[in-house]
């Protein structure tokens, strides 16, 4: 501060410190806008650290504030760019900026592909499905009836037959309810099974002081069960487009209700979406996913996506009581051998693999696609999941894990 020859007057110092404080609080706001969790305590610490000589060189200040304000690796990587842009007036060349630019550049082509994907999706659907086999005649009509029986009927209708937006909304509701119910029932069973198996000496002594220290009534320690963890890998490619909506809603419900659940989306690549899915409001969560949810070009690289999962996420999200649920039709456009290998690696890690294939319920469907043939030997439960009823039928299986 004593850069100039004359000592500055107190008013001047006051003025300077006010300016610095204002600038610092503006910086804090910038950080908050960029997703940093910065509280008042951090602001105060930042001020005290600037006062104690860390502000002499920008490099030193940057490094100090970086440690103070970052809370995770993504913050850590983003910070330098933000700091330089704010304090040194450099153009931001940080990750956040480039990634933003990339999406902007990609979005038109994404949109075009999206439309294509939908068209090819519906084409493939009509190719494969003999019309109206699994939704009995008249169901659709009943769906328009008023009354309580409506949801009941919906339970048996194949998701891809749902056309009316109101029906879709109902199916979504039901999927969310189902997820909630599964959660409560699974936990209750866990709690009922609890039994003490270790002696709690501390409580035993407390209770037996009146017997002169002779431990007559023993206190057992209760065992804490590890909750079941559910990891969902959802195929969001073109060929699954009829089902993704409902499943996304189901997954959202599961993530909301299970204390331990993780969700991933894949089409040609894998995306970790637990963060976006934890949004309380379902519609907002789905909005955040809308870009990811559409397959870009219709292909599915299940093998490669699984490889990414095994490599970067498996160690973190899988523990000994984990069930991996893969929702996909098994149309692999990549290398089927790779899929087989990665499935084997995954099977070694987790307790159970459930593969839900909505097409399984279609009349005359046999798993002949190379992808599903390679994967099936490693799957513990292979089930259809084209109606709400079939989703609900999974629960007893999960409860036994």
């Amino acid at each position, binding site marked *: 501060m004593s850069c100039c020859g004359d000592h500055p007057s107190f008013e001047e110092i006051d003025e300077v410190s006010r300016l610095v404080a204002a600038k610092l609080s503006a910086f804090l706001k910038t950080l908050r806008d960029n997703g940093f*969790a910065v*509280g008042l*305590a*951090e602001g105060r*610490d930042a001020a*005290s*650290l600037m006062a*104690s*000589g860390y502000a002499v060189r920008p490099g*030193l200040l940057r*490094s*100090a504030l*970086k*440690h*103070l304000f*970052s*809370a*995770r*690796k993504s*913050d*850590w990587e983003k910070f330098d760019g933000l700091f330089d842009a704010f304090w040194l007036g450099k153009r931001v060349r940080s990750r956040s900026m480039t990634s933003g630019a990339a999406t902007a550049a990609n979005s038109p082509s994404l949109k075009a592909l999206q439309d294509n994907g939908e068209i090819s999706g519906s084409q493939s659907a009509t190719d494969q499905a003999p019309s109206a086999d699994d939704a009995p005649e008249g169901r659709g009509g009943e769906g328009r009836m008023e009354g309580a029986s409506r949801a009941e009927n919906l339970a048996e209708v194949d998701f891809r037959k749902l056309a009316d937006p109101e029906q879709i909304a109902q199916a979504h509701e039901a999927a969310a309810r189902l997820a909630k119910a599964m959660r409560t029932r699974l936990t209750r069973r866990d709690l009922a099974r609890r039994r003490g198996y270790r002696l709690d*000496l*501390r409580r035993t*002594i407390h209770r037996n*002081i*009146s017997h*002169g*220290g002779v*431990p007559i009534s023993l206190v057992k320690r209760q065992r*804490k069960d*590890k909750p079941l963890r559910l990891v969902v890998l959802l195929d969001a490619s073109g060929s699954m487009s009829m089902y993704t909506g409902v499943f996304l809603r189901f997954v959202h419900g599961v993530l909301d209700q299970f204390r331990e659940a993780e969700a991933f989306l894949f089409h040609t690549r894998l995306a970790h979406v637990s963060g976006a899915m934890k949004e309380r409001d379902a519609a907002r969560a789905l909005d955040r996913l809308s870009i990811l949810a559409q397959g870009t070009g219709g292909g599915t690289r299940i093998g490669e996506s699984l490889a990414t999962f095994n*490599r970067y996420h498996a*160690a*973190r999200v899988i523990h000994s009581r984990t069930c991996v649920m893969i929702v996909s039709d098994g149309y692999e456009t990549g290398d089927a051998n790779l899929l087989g290998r990665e499935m084997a690696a995954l099977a070694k890690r987790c307790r159970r693999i459930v593969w839900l294939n909505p097409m399984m319920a279609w009349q005359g469907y046999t798993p002949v696609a190379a992808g599903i043939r390679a994967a099936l030997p490693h799957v513990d439960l292979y089930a259809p999941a084209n109606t709400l009823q079939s989703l609900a039928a999974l629960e007893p299986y999960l409860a036994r894990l």
Partner: protein
Amino acid sequence: MKTRDEIAQALAVCGYIADAELATAISLMQLLKRPLLLEGEAGVGKTEVAKALACVHATELIRLQCYEGLDQSAALYEWNYQRQLLAIQAHRGADADAVEDQIFSEKYLLERPLLASIRRERSPVLLIDEIDRADDEFEAFLLELLSDFQVSIPELGTITASAVPRVVLTSNGTRELSDALRRRCLYHYVDYPDVDREARIIMARTDGASASLSLQIARMVEGVRKEELRKVPGVAETLDWAAALVGLDVRDLHDLPETVHETLMCLLKTREDRARVTREVTERLLGKVA
């Protein structure tokens, strides 16, 4: 306050080669009295930071290794039940209140790492290792302890820290930590060291490793890390390998490519990785080392 260059030097004396950012983090720890949260891949030397810090301040290192199911009685304190039972037997017939006062006194208290760390005269370094392995509940409890550094034991009263410990937490990212804990801590991401720093680490930690060999090893390891591996080798593995090479009397990696290839088992810990780094790959990597 020490400057960060002094801190880096002091750490180097203790055998830890720090980069400038870590030195800043440690100087901030002292200034702001906040815990330091270290994250990074396994084997990049997170735990070593705490050990070096204890060495710099010539103070005790108290380590709490976290695991699933860690609870208060293993982390904070526990009564010595066997002695309590004996005491109750020995004082049979005495006044019950007096016996109770006696068996819940200091003498029968077993201190565990967290309690130990706040009862020392000189502030120790408290290392809470792999906090991500502990449960959420324990994390919340820890948060409380880290904010006021006091513990209440129902039978004994409240114990307040005589000297505030320097706290280092490490995490491997097997579980996402709570935002509250993250906010309380200074954050430092420990990355794989660059070639120059890794060479200096090898020289500091391995007896008999010459400067040129250390540099070669560091370059080679950097090459190996760039291969598509399932388990990327950390600094600990590098040191193992350096020790193996020195032990086998290798002066220059180019002299004995066979030995180099065979000893790579120190770096590659899965079968797939081992199969991926074939003899040809080793030769290609060696070619780049120069």
